[in-house]
């Protein structure tokens, strides 16, 4: 793997993180992150749609007329979102119900259309695939981070997928009885996002980078 390819794969995780740096796809980021499992579920859904729509758009880029490219991209994306919806409904109904309206809304998640327009429509299939994996992974990591903070402090639990006798919920001793309830509410999500964003800005300022 050449260093350029590696750069395409890894930049989505930190340097061009879709949530904290490019600021795309904010609605699901705040809407579904009340529980860790929902953040991960949403992230996996987005990775799937992003990777496949990137591949197909890169394959079809020479056949799609320029003037109708946006509707064409949206149709491709919507097809994969429908697949994700059906698969989740069939295999993980609890996550499907928790994600609710945000699952079909992956269609209008700006990250996917943004990468289609900015990357997949100009680059090779392999590069687009790597870009989709990297960006999707960066999105999932950010979502998991936000969900982790909100759930641990907001309700004192960490909810994962139930396996066998383990019911999937880890309770944190002190916080479970005295949670900081606001973090699990809408207002707390916006506040947390603001503070995290400020932290990352301060961090890169401290390192002497331009924000």
């Amino acid at each position, binding site marked *: 793997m050449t260093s350029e390819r590696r750069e395409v794969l890894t930049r989505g995780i930190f340097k061009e993180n879709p949530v904290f740096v490019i*600021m*795309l796809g*904010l*609605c*699901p980021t*705040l*809407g579904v992150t009340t529980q860790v499992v929902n953040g991960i579920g949403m992230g996996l859904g987005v990775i799937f749609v992003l990777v496949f729509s990137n591949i197909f758009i890169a394959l079809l880029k020479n056949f799609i007329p320029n003037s109708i490219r*946006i*509707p064409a991209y*949206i*149709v491709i994306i*919507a*097809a994969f*979102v*429908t697949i994700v*919806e*059906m698969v989740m409904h069939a295999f993980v109904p609890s996550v499907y119900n928790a994600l609710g*309206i945000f699952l*079909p*809304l992956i*269609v*209008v*998640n*700006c990250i996917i*259309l943004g990468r289609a327009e900015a990357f997949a429509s100009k680059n090779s299939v392999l590069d687009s695939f790597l870009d989709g994996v990297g960006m999707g992974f960066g999105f999932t990591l950010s979502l998991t981070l936000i969900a982790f903070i909100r759930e641990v402090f907001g309700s004192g639990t960490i909810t994962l997928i139930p396996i066998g006798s383990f019911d999937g919920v880890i309770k944190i001793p002190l916080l479970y009885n005295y949670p900081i309830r*606001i973090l699990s*509410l*809408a*207002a*707390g*999500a*916006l*506040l*947390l*996002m*603001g*503070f995290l*964003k*400020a*932290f990352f*800005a*301060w961090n890169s*300022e401290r390192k002497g980078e331009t924000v």
Partner: protein
Amino acid sequence: MTYIAIFITYIFVNNFILSQFLGLCPFIGVSKNSESAIGMGMAVTFVMGIASIMTYLVYHLVLLPLNLVYLQTLSFILVIAALVQFVELIVQKNSPALYQALGIFLPLITTNCAVLGIAIMNINENYNLMESFSAGVAAGLGFTLALILMSNIRERLDLHPVRKAYSGVPIAFISGGLMALAFMAFDKSLLTNLLG
């Protein structure tokens, strides 16, 4: 009575931005000054009202009879994309003044999750045609309200010294969070008190 309840619900109780997290991208992106906030809000309200009617008709006249409900997401987003383009053409032709005001915001609306969101919500809530339309307009008005409030806050913030790390987007999010906290006063019990 149902219509009053729908309006209060979607403007205050379930405000699209401050409690449902739909349409956050324009909330942060287009709220730097109040003129563009009003323009964006009006364009979204307009499209949401029409989109509610169109998606209702598509769902009940095409998807349900043909048993194609699984194509809901795909057909709704196509209807909305086509509709936005269509509205843009009509406004440009018939009302240059309105086009001047709304024009640059219209293309952005296709990917605004609030529009697809209200279309799907109308179906989930089993609203009839008039209720869907009211919900669309009310949600648009709620969106406009939050956007205008936010733009006024940000215009004032520009005049105040804000720490460098907080300036711009972070402080916007924090102001939004405090506003959402205030909006929590509008809850279900308010609705029952008002309407009995």
